[in-house]
């Protein structure tokens, strides 16, 4: 049987031999569709013995014709035929015509007398209530879904990626621990509703917006711009129809995003360090820094 590697066939034959109590060589030969070695019949007293060859007038099959008709490899048909015959205790059907001589797989069927095609069906079917299975077709190995993916250069996540991530994680933990060991989080005086500090600043990540408040109406700077900004961010993938990810193809997208990115950064830095009492403009190196998030660091 050319389709199966020899070692797999050997393993299967050994398993079958063990299960049925027949010599390995015989099982192997049968699976290959060849005649069992001499003396194998004698060694296997009961179940393993191949069924007797059909006498004249028994069922006749032309495996070569069936093979080409149904697209099933001939050795499989042969194997199925023999298994059926052995199971039912009936004779192995004779081969029709020239196929007998042409194929070594016909094995012991070869000397059988050629019978007329269309002979009577096998006499003994399976006992009532016993279901048998037939091989309908053989599906060639291959993916169910056709894929056209190119093979890619890939590496194992373990250990390569996980090691890098672990180092990054440790570095971050070290940075955070060191920072926390040397810089205390600010804790000013007890909250006092009657004493607003000057300047009062929002958390630093909102200072860009607070900076915008100095230029625009609160409805625009505090609400419309951030809302619009967030919605615009969310819609980037649906607006940018350019399929390329190469920077040289995305000059417009890069420019627009970079402009907004820089604007947000500058506004935030400006609001954090260049705004003093009354949220008026100051030079941090001349008038001091009015940025309480880093108060403990700066003192």
């Amino acid at each position, binding site marked *: 049987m050319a389709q199966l590697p020899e070692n797999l066939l050997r393993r299967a034959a050994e398993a079958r031999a063990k299960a049925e109590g027949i010599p390995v060589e015989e099982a192997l030969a049968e699976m290959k569709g060849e005649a069992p070695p001499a003396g194998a019949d004698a060694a296997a007293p009961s179940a393993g013995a191949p069924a007797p060859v059909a006498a004249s007038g028994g069922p006749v099959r032309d495996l070569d014709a069936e093979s080409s008709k149904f697209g099933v490899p001939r050795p499989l048909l042969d194997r199925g035929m023999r298994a059926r015959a052995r199971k039912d205790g009936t004779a192995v059907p004779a081969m029709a015509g020239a196929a007998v001589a042409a194929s070594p797989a016909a094995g012991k069927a070869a000397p059988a007398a050629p019978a007329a095609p269309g002979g009577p069906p096998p006499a003994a079917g399976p006992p009532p209530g016993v279901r048998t299975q037939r091989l309908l077709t053989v599906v060639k190995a291959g993916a169910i879904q056709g894929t056209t993916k190119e093979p*890619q250069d*890939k*590496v*194992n*996540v*373990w*250990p390569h*990626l*996980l090691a*890098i991530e672990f180092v*990054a*994680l440790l570095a*971050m*933990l070290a940075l*955070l*621990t060191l*920072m*926390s*060991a040397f810089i*205390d*989080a*600010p*804790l*000013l*005086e*007890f*909250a006092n*509703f009657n004493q*607003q*500090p000057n300047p*009062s*600043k*929002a*958390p*630093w*990540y*909102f200072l860009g*917006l607070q900076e915008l*408040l100095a230029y625009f109406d609160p*409805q625009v*700077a*505090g*609400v*419309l711009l951030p809302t619009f900004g*967030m919605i615009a*961010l*969310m819609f*980037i*993938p649906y607006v940018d129809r350019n*399929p*390329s*990810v*190469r*920077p040289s193809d995305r000059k417009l*997208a*890069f420019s627009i*995003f970079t402009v907004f*990115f820089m604007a947000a950064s500058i506004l935030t830095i400006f609001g954090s360090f260049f705004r003093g009492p009354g949220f008026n403009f100051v030079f941090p190196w001349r008038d001091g820094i009015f940025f*309480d*998030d880093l108060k403990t660091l700066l003192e």
Partner: protein
Amino acid sequence: MADGNGKGGVLTAVKGMGTHLRNSQVWNSIFRPGSPARADSTDSPRNRAYVVMNNVLYHLHPVKVKRHGLKVSYVLCLGGLSFFLFIILTVTGIFLMFYYRPTSPAAYFDLQALATDVAFGQLVRNMHRWGAHLMVITVFLHMTRVFYHGAYKPPREFNWVVGIILLLLTLLLSFTGYLLPWDQLALWAVTVGSNMGAYAPVFGEQVSFILVGGVQITADTLLRFYVLHVLFLPFVIVIFMAVHFWRVRKDGGISGPL
């Protein structure tokens, strides 16, 4: 003993115990096949795959990644570090919850006590605060990294939207936590911040009323922000993170190369 048999005996005994432990049913039930912790583990391509596949890590990583994904200069680990900071913030936050009461004036005194009475209290509070600032930065930089790599393009469009929601939730988490020290910095920064929301057209005042729990910030706001900060927003962000990570895997892992 002069010949050192005693020492060697102890060493052998300890080694034997270790081997026994690593072959035990308990050990093998904890570490699934392929894990380097198992006694029978060898370094083979199959076991390298199993380390990820037979592990909860498989939810975060495939067995293999494209080679360029290993370059630190490509991703800068920003997404992973954001997640790691979130975990640090959860751990330190739980620690802080043991010593904090969200009422006025107890909240402020609890923070003072944290600095003086609680072992490592100040260190953990510092880690929580600086970690929060760092997380805002890493999440924001992660977003810019993803933009410049065009990693939001199909099929990753929706995951970008989830990412923006995560950025918003990160800002909200940081903002709600900002009030909790109940000092002058917290009170007035949150006042400035929530006043902006009140300017929203149509329903701005209602939103502000619900958020603050009144027409202006009071001690009730403290409780409201506390619940938002320790329960509601973490709950929501974890759900979105789960979707985010799952979509990273489903959308084909790391993007690129450029």
